[in-house]
């Protein structure tokens, strides 16, 4: 994963500004043939191993993954999936990693979280920001599975507000070590890991002033002063180890600073960009598996003299699950290919994929349980465990609320800065002449030709037109709310949520259209997936339209009032029997 300077290419950020950067997402990416072959063989090896070795209900009951399973995975090389070959890993692309991760999820979610915390968030900071020396020291051990990694950001007082962490690392007088104190919470692999990427506040001198800024450190679990708490007893992914960590005057050698001093937050955010994508891929696997499981169950269960699969209310559920799974898959593997280019900003796409895929999985788990009726609720069937295991995905690596706010605000940042500059330019027309012209060009283009997808296969005419219309809506709404709220927009989450929801489904539509269009242009039949495409795109543009309408025409006032009512009373303030 060579780190190159990112350009500012971002499909979604452009879309917020009304520009459809078709080149970036068309044609839909494909793995090169030899990587595809490697991937197929790795998947086959994994399936052979996992069929023999992985017993998911057992892992759930025991709250533990058997040692032999982790050891077996390590021997086969699964701990070094995305570590470059020169450090003993497999050097898989993000796309191939995601596909393998999907398959791991299909056997057991605890196992997948354990692997993800190690291979994705636990290792990616080092891959992205590590010095050659740090890489040589740690990557071979992590690739072989001799060492397990963890990513330690969250603290008791700082979850969603990750920038608010209190752990502190202070350089000693000799400037040889940082003395680390503090504690972490909810750390996956906490007590089974050997190397932690720890985030802590440090003093940084900027313009002669000391400021507290976050830095990242590579911390070895065996160092004096490091300790891990007891594994949490959790609702789901019970076999995944989650613990608190404690740092008591831990001496971290200065050479274990990861990335530049004071740039730890960036290390964390970039690591999570990759992490969320893997997680979303895992969710795609879950969506596909659940759709299949629910369909199999429905076909075999007879009521009223026929299989329940024939009832249309059941068909409605299965069709939605399939369309969701298809859209989520389209989004994830478009995004992974963006990540593999190493020159594209895919932070929004990754957050969007995580939100969409985790919620699609949650809906699927819920519907699958429903289709299985009473059996679905029995621990003798797998549906209950799947519901429990699926739920975490909406919470970790950025809650879906935070990721929605992030999507909206990061998306609006471009247009926001632009509008701010325009404001200045208008006030000072001569100095800002360049800007004004640029603005004028953009405006003229907006009015005369709104940006559209070009040369889309006729089969997708309707979907493409809807996408064009609502991409335009997004841009005009973004401009409208920015004009109205300015930088105060950060306090308007009702609006942010709507903008984010529009962005999520627009990205979904773009990914699906790109995928099918590319297949058509490869002269392949798309007959089979067209119903899924139509179902998803239809639901998507209706949701986008609803969100767009509610930006101006909404009941936000009533929402605030309802909350005031509830927040200000000790007990729910209505009771039909005492009115």
């Amino acid at each position, binding site marked *: 994963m060579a780190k190159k300077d990112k350009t500012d290419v971002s499909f979604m950020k452009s879309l917020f500004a009304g520009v459809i950067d078709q080149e970036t997402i068309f044609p839909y990416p494909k793995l090169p043939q*030899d990587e595809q*072959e*490697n991937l*197929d*063989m*790795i998947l*086959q*090896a994994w399936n*052979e*191993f996992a069929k023999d070795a992985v017993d998911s209900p057992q892992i759930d009951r025991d709250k533990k993954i058997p040692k032999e399973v982790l050891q077996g995975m390590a*021997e*086969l*090389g*699964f701990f*070094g*999936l995305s570590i470059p*070959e020169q450090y003993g890993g*497999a*050097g898989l692309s993000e796309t191939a990693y995601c596909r393998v991760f999907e398959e791991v999820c299909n056997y057991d979610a605890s196992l997948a979280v354990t692997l993800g915390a190690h291979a994705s968030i636990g290792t990616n900071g080092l891959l992205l920001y590590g010095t050659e020396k740090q890489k040589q020291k740690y990557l071979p051990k992590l690739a072989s599975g001799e060492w397990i990694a963890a990513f330690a950001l969250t603290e008791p007082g700082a979850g969603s507000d990750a920038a608010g962490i209190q752990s502190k690392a202070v350089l000693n007088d000799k400037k040889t070590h940082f003395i680390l104190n503090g504690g972490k919470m909810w750390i996956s692999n906490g007590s089974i890991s050997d190397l932690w990427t720890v985030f802590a506040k440090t003093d940084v001198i900027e313009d002669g002033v000391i400021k507290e800024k976050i830095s990242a450190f590579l911390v070895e679990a065996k160092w004096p002063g490091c300790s891990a708490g007891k594994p949490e007893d959790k609702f789901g992914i019970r076999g995944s180890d989650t613990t608190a960590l404690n740092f008591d005057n831990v001496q971290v050698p200065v050479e274990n600073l990861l990335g530049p001093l004071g740039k730890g937050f960036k290390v964390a955010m970039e690591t999570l960009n990759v992490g969320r994508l893997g997680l979303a891929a895992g969710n795609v696997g879950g969506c596909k598996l659940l759709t299949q499981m629910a369909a199999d169950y429905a076909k075999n269960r007879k009521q009223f003299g026929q299989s329940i699969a024939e009832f249309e209310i059941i068909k409605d559920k299965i069709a939605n699950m399939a369309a969701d799974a298809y859209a989520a898959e389209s989004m994830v593997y478009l995004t992974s290919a963006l990540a593999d280019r190493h020159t594209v900003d895919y932070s929004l796409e990754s957050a969007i994929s995580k939100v969409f895929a985790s919620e699609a999985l949650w809906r699927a788990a819920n519907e699958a349980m429903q289709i299985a009726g009473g059996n679905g609720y029995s621990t003798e069937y797998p549906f209950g465990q799947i519901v429990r295991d699926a739920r975490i995905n909406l919470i970790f690596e950025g809650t879906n609320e935070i990721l929605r706010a992030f999507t909206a605000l990061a998306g609006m940042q471009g247009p926001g800065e632009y509008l701010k500059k325009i404001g200045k330019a208008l006030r000072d027309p001569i100095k800002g002449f360049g800007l004004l012209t640029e603005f004028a060009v953009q405006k003229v283009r907006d009015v005369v030709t709104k940006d559209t997808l070009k040369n889309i296969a006729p089969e997708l005419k309707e979907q493409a037109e809807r996408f064009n219309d609502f991409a335009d809506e997004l841009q005009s709404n973004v401009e409208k709310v920015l004009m109205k709220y300015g930088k105060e927009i950060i306090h308007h989450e009702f609006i942010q949520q709507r903008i984010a929801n529009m962005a999520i489904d627009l990205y979904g539509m773009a990914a699906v259209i790109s995928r099918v269009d590319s297949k058509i242009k490869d002269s392949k039949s798309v007959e089979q997936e067209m119903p899924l495409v139509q179902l998803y795109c239809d639901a998507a543009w209706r949701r986008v339209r609803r969100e767009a309408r509610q930006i101006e025409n909404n009941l936000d006032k009533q929402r605030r009032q309802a909350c005031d009512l509830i927040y200000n009373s000790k007990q729910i303030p209505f009771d039909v029997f005492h009115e």
Partner: protein
Amino acid sequence: MKIAILLKQVPVKDATLKVNGDGLWIDEDNVTFEINESDHYGLEEALRLKEKHDGEVVVVTMGPERVKESIKQALAKGADRAIHINSSGYSNPDPIAHAKLLCAAIKDENFDLILSGLQSDDLGYGQTGVLVAEMLGMAHATLVMETDVQDGKIKVKRELEGGWFQSVELPLPAVLTIQSGLNQIRYATIKGIMAAKRKEIKEIAISDLGVSDADASGIQMHKIYLPVKTKQTVVLEGDTADIVSKLVDKLKNEAKVL
């Protein structure tokens, strides 16, 4: 020790098969293929022998382009190189012809040991290994359950019927046909999969093997068809004694197992 493993690719066990247009073979579109089961065990045995005695394991496979996938899997598991007799467009079901072609491809390699599976899961003749041994003038043993190489000789345990085994000693070079289950098959490692890319697969066309009668066949395929399901469930009724006598009667006269 230089070891060859004759490895065939066959349709996966749970493939849904359809008879093709001319009724002489299955329709191969939409069918997934895999390494023949007993060949898989043969490969594992070859790899174990190599790990114990050093040397080289060479995969020898005849089949169309698609068999490359199985070859690569064998290389990923640890075989050193491969010989692929590309048989695209060649469809002769006769194991004698197959053996001739295989021999032509490997005779100059001077293998110490040639392993094959006991039989293929598609045609199931169980002859190819034995024929190769005869044609190359090598000793052979079939249904091998255990191997032990010692000073230019190999001791093997063969499976006979009814739980009986036979121990035989053969001089090397020899050909063994391997019974499924004699060892535990390893999984390919990711390192192995990556390394497989760099291993040699020598491709030979049938026409380059100089086997003039490659098309001659002692076997003619007239028709293949899917077996019709005839299984029936019969529920016996009456009191226990009644049921028992009915059951014994059926086992004797219908099932003919008593």
